[in-house]
């Protein structure tokens, strides 16, 4: 809701300002809203915004081109009142008090006028969080830039304010039909359908907004009901293909050749001082192509006393490869949770692996904000099983658990169609990432993990 109000406020700025910086200003608002939670910080945020609004709006209209903040303190233009930034010099206490009261009254009035007092408290913030951070990608390799679609929601600058009523109607109807047909819980699907219609009838969807904002709004409306972070509506400026892109034999052959040429993204395997095995690989490639490469890499770690997996640049890949590599680390089959799949015999690692001597070796995994998707699957499960110590930064938060459904040329949605049993926790890494056991900057993670491994080995 807060975001909607701010989007409304931005509409009052001249078109030139909105086109140049409207989306950026909205993004800045989202960033602040996400970090300034709680009553007082939110109150402070709105006071800042209202003061800024009062100062910058007249100036935008007062000058031919936007003048600089604070410029009026030095020189005035065409008799337009101008102001210095308040933070430079604190106003009087009584002025602050009156300003706060007026701001609160204005805020309350807007809320009441819109008719939803507090109904959306936090929804704006939640949708801000989810913008573009609801990655969805087709599961099959070869992948064709899933990030492009994932980030499309938030990169619609310059803003296109002209999404018309017919388009909105079509997207909502498409969403409802897909939810009813595919969502894992039919009762919740029905509740979501009713909620989407209710929002539509109340006019919640009528505010001027571009495709990305509309997709985020629908995402938050669905999640408010289902509390399922894997549900996502996606807007793409580029037309979405009619049919799923089938990889031709030529494309598959090229993919295979490129993967092999790149050593299946296994970048480095070595034994570090202290007899610590180090393996850096930047994806979890298709085992049908890379099984032998992975096996060779794992075999070369056999003589190490501790293992460090470097996943700081690992952007994900195939769950089957996650299982294959994890299998080396256990002497018995172990259940590995994957939000994308129902439990099957494939959910258990094919352990023990003949010839592997890694089942009792300490394991450390280096992570960064770029560690993503299947790499997070690997991190999350080994962390939950207490089989590895994660060192580095919180990972990217891509669970990719929805199945893609195209609605029209620009809209599509990810809908979870399975409900995998998570024995570890109610939530997984979708949106929030996997938090490391030991926090360190990505660039310092190797040093930190090496230190931890050496300390552990010395204790033995």
């Amino acid at each position, binding site marked *: 809701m807060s975001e909607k109000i701010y989007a409304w406020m931005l509409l009052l700025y001249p078109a030139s300002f909105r086109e140049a910086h409207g989306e*950026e200003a909205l993004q800045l608002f989202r960033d602040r809203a996400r970090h300034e939670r709680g009553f007082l910080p939110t109150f402070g945020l709105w006071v800042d915004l209202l003061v800024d609004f009062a100062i910058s709006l007249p100036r935008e209209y007062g000058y031919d081109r936007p003048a600089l903040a*604070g410029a009026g*303190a030095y020189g005035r233009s065409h008799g337009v009142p101008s102001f*210095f930034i308040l933070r430079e010099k604190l106003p009087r206490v009584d002025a602050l008090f009156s300003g706060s009261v007026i701001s609160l009254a204005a805020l309350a009035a807007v809320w009441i006028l819109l008719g939803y007092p507090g109904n959306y408290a936090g929804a704006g913030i939640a949708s801000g969080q989810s913008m573009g*951070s609801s990655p969805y990608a087709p599961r099959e390799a070869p992948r064709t830039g899933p990030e492009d679609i994932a980030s499309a929601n938030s*990169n619609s600058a310059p803003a296109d304010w002209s999404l018309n009523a017919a388009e909105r109607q079509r997207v909502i109807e498409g969403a409802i039909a897909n939810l009813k047909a595919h969502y894992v819980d039919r009762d919740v699907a029905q509740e979501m359908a009713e909620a989407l219609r209710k929002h539509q009838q109340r006019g919640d969807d009528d505010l001027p907004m571009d495709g990305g904002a509309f997709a985020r709004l629908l995402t938050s409306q669905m999640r408010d009901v289902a509390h399922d972070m894997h549900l996502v509506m996606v807007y793409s400026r580029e037309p979405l293909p009619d049919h799923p892109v089938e990889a031709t034999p030529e494309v598959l052959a090229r993919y295979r050749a490129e993967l092999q040429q790149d050593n299946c993204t296994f970048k480095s395997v070595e034994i570090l001082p202290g007899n610590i095995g180090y393996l850096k690989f930047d994806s979890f490639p298709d085992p049908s192509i890379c099984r032998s490469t992975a096996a060779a890499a794992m075999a070369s770690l056999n003589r190490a006393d501790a293992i460090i997996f470097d996943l700081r640049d690992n952007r994900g890949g195939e769950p089957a490869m996650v299982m294959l590599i994890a299998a080396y680390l256990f002497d018995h089959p172990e259940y590995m949770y994957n939000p994308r799949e129902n439990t099957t015999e494939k959910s258990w690692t094919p352990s023990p692996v003949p010839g592997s001597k890694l089942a009792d070796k300490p394991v450390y995994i280096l992570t960064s904000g770029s560690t993503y998707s299947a790499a997070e699957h690997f991190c999350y499960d080994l962390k939950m099983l207490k089989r590895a110590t994660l060192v580095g930064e919180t990972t990217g938060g891509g669970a990719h658990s929805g199945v893609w459904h195209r609605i029209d040329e620009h809209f599509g949605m990810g809908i979870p169609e399975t409900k995998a049993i998570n024995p570890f926790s109610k939530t997984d890494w979708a949106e929030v990432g996997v938090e490391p056991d030991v926090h360190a900057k990505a660039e310092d993670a190797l040093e930190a993990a090496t230190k931890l491994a050496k300390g552990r080995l010395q204790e033995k």
Partner: protein
Amino acid sequence: MPKRKLDPLPSAAFQILLSLVDDDLHGYGIMRQVEQQTDGRMRVGPGTLYSSIQTLLEAKFIEQVDLREDVKLGPARRRYYRLTSAGRKLARSEAERLADLLRVARAKKILRGEYV
């Protein structure tokens, strides 16, 4: 002419230039950096910030770099800004002007305590 609006250099513009001295930043990064370098005294709102950025862009004191992710803030891609050599020069001359003022203030003994 944008340059005319920058003479004298308004405080917000100077703070934005200073915030970009060490690193390229996006709008939210600039806001946070300004807040930090002023010990929380100045928190530039979105309207003021992008208004100033627009004028600095037109005067070529800063430039747009690219859209990229900020891993700390999530996958949304943000527009980054960079200080140009002209902008760096302007920030330096403004700092020197303020240093001159400070010298005068010191000479007139209106400052208390130790000042660098």
